[in-house]
């Protein structure tokens, strides 16, 4: 007789509409995991006494308490959350060769997806709004071309493969059901050369708005002449269609370059958000995560190198301030407008309310380093 775990596995392995319908929803998972309404997911690592690290995916609640974890093959980058069913995924860090998916009521790994032949993952992927498509950014490393690969879910059959309109598509977000916004970071890499940048002089990052129906480029903007080394890496989009962009500059440490910008479907160029020069210097030319709060009116951008998270008010694009958080990178919205959850490599989790200039630590997991990106699981949003 099949137990629950076997049943779930067989559902996914067989694929198909009926088996998908049989999977638990987030409401079921929340009821079994927490009394609260908020769950968060992030990759993390543990370091032993010999300084060797092992890598995990973890789910924690609004108090920062770890509720579930599972060991991973190696270091991962960003989590992905299914919109309907209680499934979280994690994408291997660049150059990545796996995406693992877990069903949270059973805690079991249900699926591992490999990249296409001669491709690797960039560390980020997303589901479409109905959850029957999985969209990932991949590097066709023999040509260096960026690819957007769309797979059916859960059988993971590749149903479309598009040019990303650039090199190094790192993260993408959905602006609407048919428009994917891609941060083409511009960095050409090859697994034979680890993470070395092979096109530093010629890199050409851009933000591309891509039609998921046809794969055609709807719109594209870049940083313009003189800023070709300003790699566009992470992004988020709010309900008003504003796309926030975080850059990582690959030029000189002393160059005065903008590090945060915004764009939209109609913008002819990227608008750079202001910040005090002393804060800009503290960023050390590097943005980590980019995230809007629940209202879409507050933008948060982390800089692990600077040990800070900076905030902007999207109503007037003004700089709000910054929180000092060592080794911080993960940023996620919470259920409360204006309030964000932050995670860092020191194992700390913070709640920040930049409008009230209030930040407090909710927990610290000793021996754990939260990895780059944090995602909130929100059942209300998906119900």
């Amino acid at each position, binding site marked *: 007789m099949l137990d629950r775990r076997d049943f779930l596995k067989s559902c996914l392995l067989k694929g198909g509409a009926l088996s998908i319908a049989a999977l638990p929803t987030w409401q079921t998972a929340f009821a079994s995991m927490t009394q609260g309404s908020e769950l968060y997911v992030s990759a993390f690592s543990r370091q032993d006494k010999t300084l060797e690290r092992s890598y995990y995916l973890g789910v924690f609640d609004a108090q920062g308490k770890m509720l579930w974890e599972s060991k991973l093959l190696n270091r991962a980058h960003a989590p992905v959350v299914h919109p309907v069913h209680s499934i979280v995924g994690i994408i291997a860090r660049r150059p990545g060769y796996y995406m693992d998916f877990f069903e949270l009521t059973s805690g079991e790994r249900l699926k591992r997806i490999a990249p296409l032949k001669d491709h690797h993952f960039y560390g980020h992927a997303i589901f479409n709004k109905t959850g029957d498509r999985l969209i990932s950014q991949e590097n066709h490393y023999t040509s260096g071309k960026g690819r957007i690969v769309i797979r059916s879910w859960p059988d993971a059959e590749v149903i479309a493969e598009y040019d990303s309109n650039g090199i190094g598509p790192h993260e993408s977000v959905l602006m609407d059901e048919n428009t994917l916004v891609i941060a083409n970071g511009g960095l050409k890499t090859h697994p034979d050369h680890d993470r070395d940048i092979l096109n530093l002089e010629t890199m050409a990052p851009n933000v591309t708005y891509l039609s998921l129906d046809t794969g055609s480029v709807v719109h594209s903007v870049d940083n313009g002449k003189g800023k070709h080394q300003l790699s566009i890496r992470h992004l988020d989009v709010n309900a008003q269609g504003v796309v926030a962009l975080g850059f990582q500059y690959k030029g*000189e*440490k*002393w160059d005065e370059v903008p590090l945060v910008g915004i764009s939209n479907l109609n913008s002819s160029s990227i608008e750079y958000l202001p910040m005090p020069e002393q804060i800009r210097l503290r960023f050390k030319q590097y943005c980590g995560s980019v995230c809007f709060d629940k209202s879409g009116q507050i933008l948060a951008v982390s800089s692990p*190198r600077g040990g800070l998270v900076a905030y902007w008010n999207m109503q007037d694009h003004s700089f709000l301030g910054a929180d000092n958080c*060592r*080794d911080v990178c993960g940023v996620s919205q919470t259920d409360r407008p204006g309030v964000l959850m932050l995670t860092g490599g020191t194992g700390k989790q913070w709640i920040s309310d930049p409008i009230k200039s209030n930040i407090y*630590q909710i927990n610290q997991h000793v021996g754990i380093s*939260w*990895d780059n990106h944090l995602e909130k699981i929100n059942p209300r949003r998906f119900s």
Partner: protein
Amino acid sequence: MRFSQQKNMQSYILKASMTASLVLSTSVYAQDWKSTLAGVKDGQILPSYQAFSNSGEKLSKSIDALCLSPSSTALSTSKDLFAKNVDDWQKIQWLNFGPVTYFMRYYAFQYWPDKKGVTQRQLRSLKKDPDSMDQPKFWKSASIAVRGLTAIESLLYRKDFDPVAKPADCHLLKSIAQHHAETTQSVYTQWTNSTVSDWVYLEEGSSESAEKLAMEQVIQQWLEHMSVVKDAKLETPIGYKGKAKPKFAEFYRSSLSLDSMRTNLESYQALYHSGNPSLFAVALEQNPENANALDEQLIKNQELVNDLPSQYFSKTLSQEQKVELARPLVASISQSQKLLTKVVTNLGFQIGFNSRDGD
């Protein structure tokens, strides 16, 4: 006495003296890192910036004299004082933290590697109107490429500048050297009036002491600088992993590339032994094997850099020869990084996960 023997003896003496005070060290360490940090400041940061400021002042005065009475002898004197000032800079170059970060003074002290020849271009432009540098507002907006040692080196050593024969060139040199001396003095003064922990950005509500976080910053700076020495100073110019880029070598015009690395590697061991208790002493008590392994590795770095021929960065050696000669030193610096990471992690420092390796 060979350099390595001398260093081993120094290390032995240090170990012996530190072992005697370990009982005291433990209690101090258990509370916070205040004493160690104060030792780092008083033993390394402050004297290094003081020496840098003093030699910067001497360099500036010598250039004043050169411009008043131009001669090859005066030029030679200025070059010697320039080398001294560079050497003093190398002793504290590992620290890109605190007052030196304000107004990008760290990069103004040394605009390197100047991959696009910005310093040269801007100096040529300034040469057309050197009097503009005498305006009070000039230094408020001047490029960091023409503020410090890189610009001074160009003016002293490049063939297209001649401060002995061309007053305009000397005018440039004099203005820059004076500004450089004032800046070194300013950084030194700011360190005199502050503690290391004053320069740390504290987390709201954090229970960690400012001193521990400041010590963590010091260690992070040290670790990052090890990468600079290995990658930017050694591997890149000689083409360790690809095409050689000899003009990316540090202070190659004045042939100070090797001396600079030598001083850097000496400064690491001095830093490890600064303070009472020093980081070494605390580590020795916590894990003698790791503490000594790091100490020995730091000594080995110095031995290996001294084994390189004096003309190592010149054209006399082929790329293959340079790479072969560099292998032991590259491996030793890498091992030093691993050991330092191990030592400080075991002491409870969190030296960065996302900040050191993101994507």
